């Protein structure tokens, strides 16, 4: 038609494009070859800079070439005058910026910039901050740039308040910004150092409340955005406020001391896993106020950090006729000690902290803190009413209830767990484990109050066992009718355990039932034990007399009784 422009067909365009690409590829390959040849020949001069810049300009992710450039720059540093070097550095900075425009998320480029700035005698940090701000304006979640900004801010000693204001401005624009929230969590403790509580100090009340309000705004606006919830969790977990072990106790403490006359053995339980060197003086034992050299070991015999450490006592101490003996253990590294007395007619003696719930599984709440938590709980419940299916909200409610009063809220917590599992089936197993942990903690707390040595954990839908180190003194443990798959190695901490009921689970391994000095009766009926070999650990329990294996697959094996008699000669009654 009249006046119409003639244009190339799409085939012609495609062909032109293909030729162009082919040409590009040739250039790229030949330049790469040239660089590698020069590098091998040790010709690290400006021509290498030129060649590598051609390639890196198109593909900044070629890490080897950045290395190459660094080698060249290091060489040139020695050869050039300061003026020449300054020009070189200026060119390099400009080149880096052009590479960042090609790919703002190139590891190599940001790293090279870090390296370069770190070597400059007078780096212009203000310009670098400006650069970061510009890149974060384009993509506020570019964590490469955030990393670099933190590097620059640290080097330039930018006041934390300024950086905090910077995170403010980015969060205002788009609060879905992990890096920005994270940076706050680094800056706030710097801005508000708390002299009394060491490196993990709490935030002052007013700051905490302000931050909580900010983050609440975020999760009320968009409860499905994770970044805000993570920050919320950090805020609540800050300092002594966190909701579970082991952060609760910053100081290592001796939790329990137990002496048994029969086994001629002394057991110590710590508040966290520690490594005790054998025969060293980190853990001193004083018997009747005079030091005694002993050899410390863990229940499973492996030399690694453990809650529980024990040692054999010379029988002379235990068989004499003195009315009492006093044992004192001193943890020199942690400045902690504990003492217990064994009287003449007693089989054992112990001393344990009359552990209240606060110290055990969470931190003592000041009145203000618990008010904060209460109001957080209130707003989360409000949100949950509006968003009954929001998993982050449900989980936060559970954690808040635990922090406030685990026993009071137990029933409610369990209901929330049910809802949460229904809305988030992908994480059902994780939630089951978490629930098991909380239930176990609650049981331990109840036991503490009652000062008993019998623990019933039957019919609780447990999937894992934890905090077993708390059960050093327990003699009877009922774990039946749960969903346990194993009796874990940590079970070896139950030094006083006499009766263990673990029937009606799905147990496949018994690694933890090892070296239990007092275990007499073990019920494992209706579990999933496949091979007699799985029972091997039981052989190390010297007093085991009764073993119930009914309803396990291994009972079907031919000649099982003989096999077991051979494996466990000292067990008098085995039910299969």
């Amino acid at each position, binding site marked *: *038609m009249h006046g119409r422009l*003639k244009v190339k067909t799409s085939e012609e365009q495609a062909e032109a494009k293909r030729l162009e690409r082919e040409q590009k590829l040739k250039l790229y390959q030949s330049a790469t070859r040239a660089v590698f040849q020069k590098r091998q020949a040790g010709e690290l001069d400006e021509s290498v800079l030129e060649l590598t810049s051609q390639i890196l300009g198109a593909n900044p992710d070629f890490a080897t070439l950045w290395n190459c450039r660094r080698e060249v720059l290091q060489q040139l540093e020695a050869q050039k005058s300061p003026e020449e070097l300054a020009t070189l550095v200026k060119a390099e900075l400009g080149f880096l910026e052009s590479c960042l425009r090609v790919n703002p998320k190139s590891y190599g480029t940001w790293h090279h910039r870090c390296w370069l700035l770190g070597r400059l005698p007078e780096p212009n940090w203000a310009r670098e901050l400006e650069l970061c701000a510009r890149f974060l304006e384009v993509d506020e979640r570019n964590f490469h740039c955030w990393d670099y900004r933190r590097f620059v801010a640290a080097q330039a000693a930018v006041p934390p308040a300024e950086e905090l204001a910077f995170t403010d401005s980015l969060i205002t624009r788009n609060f879905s910004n992990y890096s920005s929230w994270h940076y706050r969590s680094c800056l706030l403790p710097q801005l508000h150092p708390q002299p009394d509580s060491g490196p993990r100090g709490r935030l002052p009340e007013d700051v905490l409340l302000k931050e909580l309000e900010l983050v609440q705004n975020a999760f*009320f606006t968009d409860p499905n955005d994770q970044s805000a919830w993570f920050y919320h969790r950090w805020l609540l977990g800050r300092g002594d406020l966190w909701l579970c072990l082991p952060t609760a106790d910053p100081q290592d403490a001796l939790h329990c001391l137990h002496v048994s006359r029969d086994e001629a053995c002394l057991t110590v339980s710590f508040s966290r896993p520690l490594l005790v060197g054998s025969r060293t003086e980190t853990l001193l034992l004083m018997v009747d106020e005079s030091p005694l050299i002993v050899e410390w070991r863990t229940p499973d015999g492996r030399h690694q950090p453990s809650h529980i450490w024990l040692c054999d006592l010379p029988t002379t101490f235990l068989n004499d006729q003195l009315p009492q003996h006093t044992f004192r253990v001193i943890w020199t590294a942690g400045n902690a000690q504990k003492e217990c007395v064994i009287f003449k007619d007693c089989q054992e003696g112990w001393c344990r902290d009359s552990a209240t719930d606060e110290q055990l599984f969470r931190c003592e709440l000041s009145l203000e803190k618990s008010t904060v938590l209460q109001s957080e709980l209130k707003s989360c419940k409000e949100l949950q009413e*509006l968003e009954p299916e929001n998993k982050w909200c449900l989980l936060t409610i559970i954690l808040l209830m635990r922090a406030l009063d685990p026993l009071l809220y137990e029933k409610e917590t369990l209901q929330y767990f049910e809802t949460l599992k229904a809305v988030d089936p992908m994480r059902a197993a994780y939630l089951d484990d978490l629930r098991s942990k909380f239930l176990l903690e609650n049981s331990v707390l109840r036991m503490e109050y009652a000062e008993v040595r019998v623990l019933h954990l039957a019919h609780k839908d447990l999937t894992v066992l934890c905090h077993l180190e708390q059960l050093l003194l327990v003699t009877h443990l009922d774990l039946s009718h749960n969903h346990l798959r194993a009796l874990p190695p940590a079970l070896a901490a139950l030094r006083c355990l006499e009766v263990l009921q673990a029937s009606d689970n799905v147990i496949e391994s018994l690694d933890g039932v090892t070296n239990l000095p007092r275990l007499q009766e073990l019920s494992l009926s209706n579990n999933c034990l496949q091979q007699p070999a799985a029972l091997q650990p039981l052989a190390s329990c010297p007093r085991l007399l009764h073993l119930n294996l009914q309803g396990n697959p291994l009972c079907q094996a031919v000649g099982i009784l003989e096999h077991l008699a051979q494996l466990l000669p000292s067990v008098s009654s085995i039910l299969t």
Partner: protein
Amino acid sequence: MADNLPSEFDVIVIGTGLPESIIAAACSRSGQRVLHVDSRSYYGGNWASFSFSGLLSWLKEYQENSDIVNESPVWQEQILENEEAIALSRKDKTIQHVEVFCYASQDLHEDVEEAGALQKNHASVTSTNSMEAADSACLPTEDKSLNTVSCEMPAEQIPSSDPESALVVNDAEVTGEKENHCDDKICVPSTSEEETSENVPPAEDTAEQPKKNRITYSQIIKEGRRFNIDLVSKLLYSRGLLIDLLIKSNVSRYAEFKNVTRILAFREGRVEQVPCSRADVFNSKQLTMVEKRMLMKFLTFCMEYEEHPDDYKAYEEMTFSEYLKTQKLTPNLQYFVLHSIAMISETASSTIDGLKATQNFLRCLGRYGNTPFLFPLYGQGELPQCFCRMCAVFGGIYCLRHLVQCLVVDKESGKCKAIIDQFGQRIISKHFLVEDSYFSENTCSHVQYRQISRAVLITDRSVLKTDSDQQISILTVPAEEPGSFAVRVIELCSSTMTCMKGTYLVHLTCTSSKTAREDLEPVVQKLFTPYTEMEIENEEVEKPRLLWALYFNMRDSSDISRNCYNDLPSNVYVCSGPDCGLGNDNAVKQAETLFQQICPNEDFCPPPPNPEDIVLDGDSLQPEASESSATQEVNLEPPKESANLGNPEEPSE
């Protein structure tokens, strides 16, 4: 120059408003020979933007226009036996009830008597007068406190059926010549001066304004070229048809845009910001946590309401405002959604209308920024010119100030075959596009037009102050009584290149129920206060002050069926003037429909080819083709000088 126009075209477009310009561009782009004429001296017709002086001469022109006596038509001699003529109108009758008020001080002179007269004349001032009087008593120079000047002339009550005489033009320039006897020093306590200077935006204009916030009328005149005052006040929806078209056709490169920065609401006598984006909701201080969730939840639902029919089907019969009451929304939020987000009528709009409007708003959100709207820098009047430029690039020929006297219709075929212009030249064409205002009364005697009420205000500060003084805001004031309509307020800051620094340009628009001033003045009074030289205490709570105001009614010729016009040949197409709506979808839809009628099966404004892909090997091509690609270079500077609108050049020779 005009007498040697080619005598034959494919398409002749009369009028340079937005729809006409889009069609001209589309036709030219698909290879039609286009002649685009406008009898006015500027581009855009009622879509134009003017500098301040340009606007004043526009007002004057209306006055003169109405004086034109119908000359006896010379062209009738040219009409042959087998032809008929459809005469076109020589004067524009689309603007009525023009009223101008000037409040800014006249070059530091004061006229106390004028101010006194004002109290009698101008209703809007009386409400604030008592307070001002009280305040002025505290000041030492009491007699100099009021110097607001009104240049209003008594508006004669003339039935609007006679638009010519109903046009009341109060030429503002007259007031500048008023005699003044008082001296020009104004005593202001130094403390309040500091206060004022704090309110002045940082750095930007302090240098230019040694007199702080006080803008005089002569300053406005002097800086008049900084103004680009739109006759129609519209915004572009970020995902509206116009944006799509601008991008698709590559016309966007001729224009620059700014995102509207905030949506405002006027409630209980207060202006407040409406949180509508995720970031807004997050940052909002006025919403409670629970409200934040409610609002976000409802908006998220609206985004994809079609997928949840159960949630709204039962409410389809009721109005959107009734529906909102059934949702989990506080009255606060209901107001925001109804008036500021959906922007629909409380009484007349159905649930589905509301959901659709809300959805549209939300879909546009975040494409270019935190609000769904864009504003073209230098004013809405840029847009028709951008399309004209594209038309010219592809060979279209432009003539401004070019009057078309009549359309020539072939009696036998009943089709239009030519136009006769002011010089008596007969120009043949296949298709004729005529903008509504060009038709004579004979042609549109049966057409029922609606009216748009417009006000243009120059003020000294924003209706809602924030840290930044560069805000572009849209505010909807709902209809107060049944029968009246919601008023749309768009406030532009100086960085939109539509007003001088230190001032704001405010556009008010609504569907008319009375004259523009009657429709809009109540809202103006609520939001603004007339300018006085006196410093008022409590400046923080003070409303923005009016420096200058213009009211007028514009004919709304949109949505009028072609059948309403008398005796139109089938190849004469009617383009409407601006509609009252906020977006430009109407104009684009109309342009596309008409284009499809003219060029069936042709692509509507496809992207221009990449220059590299244009085949230019001359020998194999016919001369026209190479010529047309050459025109591309030649015609590259079509109309752009919006500042020159008072005295525009004609781009194509």
